């Protein structure tokens, strides 16, 4: 059932021209950043070569590129999550799901995995572009892998927040702005807190991504993402149940 709902979500996304437009523009932006990073690296490479232990292409190109993608996704994910439940409410298609033999978990997980699969398609070009560098240089596969895992977990946490905010309203635009406000708020609180041990750092997904970005697989960061995602998914399930209770 979860797969059925996820596939329906994907099918609806890909049948809208706006999705294809967004895909094309974002591929262009990712490629632009990649090429800009590559050019900067090639320019300073002769000077780097004189260092005793010069940073490689992966650290100089891949890590900043993933970091940029993480920031971009923070702003993009709300635009994709806004439709998930708010639009079903507005078009009154939610009744189809609510009157079907499904539990709230099916509905929420179906939508979550459907959009996550779409975002995987959207971001798959980043590791592919980076792997094209393997033609000319040695890549640090460990660093790439940790970045890919980190970006995936980060995206999942963004989608969970967006899905929850989308369940709160029947206006997709409000859902988009609300989710953006939450995500940007967490990020701003993180970079605004100067004390190194401030609690704001602990609740910011982007902060937990930094270790992955540096190639460090820390189980506490992974646990944070899983918990963060699970909490928002559970909140969404309970919100969906409440719409049966309160109408």
């Amino acid at each position, binding site marked *: 059932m979860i797969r*059925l709902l996820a596939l*329906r979500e994907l099918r609806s996304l890909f049948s809208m021209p706006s999705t294809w437009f967004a895909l094309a523009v974002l591929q262009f932006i990712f490629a632009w950043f990649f090429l800009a990073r590559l050019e900067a690296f090639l320019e300073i490479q002769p000077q780097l070569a004189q260092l005793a232990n010069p940073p490689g292409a992966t650290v100089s190109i891949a890590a900043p590129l993933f970091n940029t993608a993480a920031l971009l996704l923070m702003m993009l994910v709300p635009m994709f999550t806004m439709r998930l439940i708010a639009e079903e409410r507005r078009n009154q298609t*939610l*009744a*189809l799901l*609510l*009157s079907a*033999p499904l539990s709230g978990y099916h509905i929420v997980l179906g939508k979550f995995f459907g959009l996550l699969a779409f975002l995987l398609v959207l971001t798959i070009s980043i590791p592919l572009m980076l792997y094209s560098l393997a033609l000319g240089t040695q890549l640090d596969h460990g660093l790439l892998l940790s970045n890919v895992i980190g970006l995936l977990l980060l995206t999942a946490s963004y989608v969970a927040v967006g899905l929850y905010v989308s369940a709160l309203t029947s206006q997709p635009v409000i859902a988009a702005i609300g989710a953006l406000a939450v995500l940007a708020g967490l990020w701003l609180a993180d970079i605004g807190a100067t004390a190194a041990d401030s609690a704001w750092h602990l609740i910011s997904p982007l902060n937990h991504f930094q270790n992955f970005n540096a190639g460090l697989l820390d189980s506490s960061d992974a646990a944070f993402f899983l918990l963060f995602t699970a909490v928002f998914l559970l909140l969404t399930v309970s919100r969906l149940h409440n719409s*049966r209770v309160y109408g």
Partner: protein
Amino acid sequence: MPDATPDITLCARNLTRRFGSRQVVHGVSLQLRRGEVLGLLGHNGAGKSTTLQMLTGCLLPNSGNIEICGIDLLRDPALAKAHIGYLPETPPLYRELNVNDYLVFAARLRGMKPAAIGEALACARQRCGLEAVGKKIIGTLSKGYQQRVGIAQAIIHGPAVIVLDEPTVGLDPTQIREIRTLIRELGDAHSVILSTHMLSEVESMCDRVEIMQHGKLIYGDTIAGMANYGGEPGKLEDNFIRITEALE
């Protein structure tokens, strides 16, 4: 599966529902037998849609219980809902899908086996007159066709109970006649409960009628019984007004 369904397909007892402090439905009890079409009649705002939403599990009642084919809807929602087909006031259509994809999705959603769907799809399209528009995007169809797609999604899985909320709203007279014939046909093998505020609709489609006013069921009888209300045969319309005014 239809052979296993007991005679009473839907049984609701003492349903109540509040929105905030406003009581919308007061102690509604309904029973529906197999092969019966029940019309829920009432003015706008009488609580018909709210009652139907509760019967389909879209809204939880504040008290009371609902059994679908002997399965408690509140305790075992997933099992019970597999026997329901529901067309809300606004048909729940994904406008960006084509008719076939949407109907297959609706059938799978109700737990139909993929092998059985091809036949069910053809049957539902044939019954609702959708043969020619299978590949069309739902958003591009006219209101009448969208309504038919809405009915098709409610019957594609052959549910024991079909719940239709104002099924003929917004249709032209020819379409209304077709839909009425279809509902009559559906009433032979399934149980149908439909809400409406049009008396002619009740007269041409229903076996039995329940009149709802201010959230209460105030009158229930067969069509013939209602036509003979008060011992003197009359037009349904006059009798409806007499009934609602007498109990005002």
